[in-house]
């Protein structure tokens, strides 16, 4: 079973040289730590920055330099600043190659829910609805089951949706899965030490298993 860092490490392998990447809050943020050194990647932060760098050294924090999670960050050489309208303009125009975000639920047809639990939690969708509506390459990073032990990979989402038919790939602590265009979670890889049966038991939606499922290499 993977920990959060493990999920981030595995997702980092999906990033290719030359990509512009938007990382959501939570596990996706950790992905930045594992981008291979031999490829050039530019991180987009939807509050208006291309070229997001690591956290600043202590004492060098600047209140005017933050990421979309409101964390103090740095700007790498070659960074560009823009306003919020242009930021979502480049997202809508599909200039961002890969979007990685968290989710509360994903359905077998690629619907995602991650912004609201009616009556309990109302934080808002932020930029997530814009990202999932426009991005062509969306990877979800999340736990396979929720705190109550219920599967988050469902036939149909039960929570209010963030977007429909949009998720392409899911990486959890148990597995890597593709969401097929015609519906269904296709099992691609198992986490180290995890059996196919364990993944079956943790997946409520339609799971497609073809041939031997390799253990992931991270």
């Amino acid at each position, binding site marked *: 079973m993977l920990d959060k860092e493990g999920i981030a490490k595995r997702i980092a392998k999906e990033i290719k040289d030359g990509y512009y990447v938007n990382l959501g809050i939570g596990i996706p943020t950790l992905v930045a730590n594992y981008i291979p050194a031999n490829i050039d990647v530019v991180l987009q*932060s*939807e*509050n*208006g*920055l291309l070229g997001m760098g*690591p*956290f*600043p*050294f*202590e004492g*060098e*924090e*600047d*209140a*005017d*330099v*933050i*990421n*979309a*999670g*409101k*964390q*103090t*960050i740095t*700007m790498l050489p070659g960074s560009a*600043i*823009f*306003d*919020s*309208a242009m*930021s*979502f*303009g480049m*997202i*809508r125009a599909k200039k961002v190659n890969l979007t990685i975000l968290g989710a509360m639920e994903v359905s077998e047809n690629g*619907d995602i829910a991650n912004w609201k639990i009616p*009556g309990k939690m*109302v*934080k*808002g*969708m*932020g*930029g*997530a*609805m*814009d990202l999932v*509506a*426009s991005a062509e390459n969306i990877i979800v990073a999340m736990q396979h089951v929720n705190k109550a032990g219920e599967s988050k990979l469902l036939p149909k989402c039960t929570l*209010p*949706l*963030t*977007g*429909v*038919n949009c998720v392409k790939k899911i990486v959890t602590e148990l597995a890597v899965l593709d969401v097929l265009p015609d519906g269904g979670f296709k099992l691609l890889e198992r986490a180290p030490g995890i059996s196919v049966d364990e993944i079956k038991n943790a997946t409520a939606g339609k799971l497609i298993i073809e041939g031997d499922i390799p253990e992931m290499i991270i």
Partner: protein
Amino acid sequence: MNKVVSDADEAIRDIEDGMTLMLGGFGLCGLPENCIAALVKKGTKELTCISNNAGVDDFGIGLMLKQRQVKKMISSYVGENAEFERQLLSGELDVELIPQGTLATRCMAAGYGMPAIFTPAGIGTEVAIGKEVRNFNGKDYLMELAFDADFAIVKAWKGDTMGNLVYKATARNFNAVMAMAGKITIAEVEELVEPGELDPDHIHTPGIYIHRIFQGVNYEKRIEQRTVRKNVR
């Protein structure tokens, strides 16, 4: 042409109960701190506030919420504010949550003189309820209307007395789009300079969009999430 006012009190003098305000900033970054303080002091009520976030309990728009000055918030993300959540769940506060890109682009449309935009954000979700959907090239888009705000209040790094503005780093955020979108736009700046001191090629918001400008004082510029690297340089 005299756009310069002495301070925030003078800048917001005619903001009245029940008006609609746009407030720039993202989280606590790039907030018009002086104007928010002046609005809290003035006690203007029944306001509709369009702002990406609602501040935190004791800073930003949170200060106005605490005093019950806000009737309705139009935002994309309102976490990190316990008083806000309390007013929302108890029904004291009307909240319209909209996607961040839609929020920004509805401001942009107002500043560009366009009545509406079409965006895929929210298609198939509760955001789409009651809205017109149009199909372009096989994909559905929601029609979203340009905002209509009585005042836009923004914060810039530098400005000149003509109203030309330059923002610093990610404090540009919603400030630059909201600056274009108010019927009356108030800009508070960290440094107010004379015409000619800003390079025309480096202006982010042309002065034509700005009606009132002043040099703010005592900026706290609070950091919401202070994150640092463990190692020292």
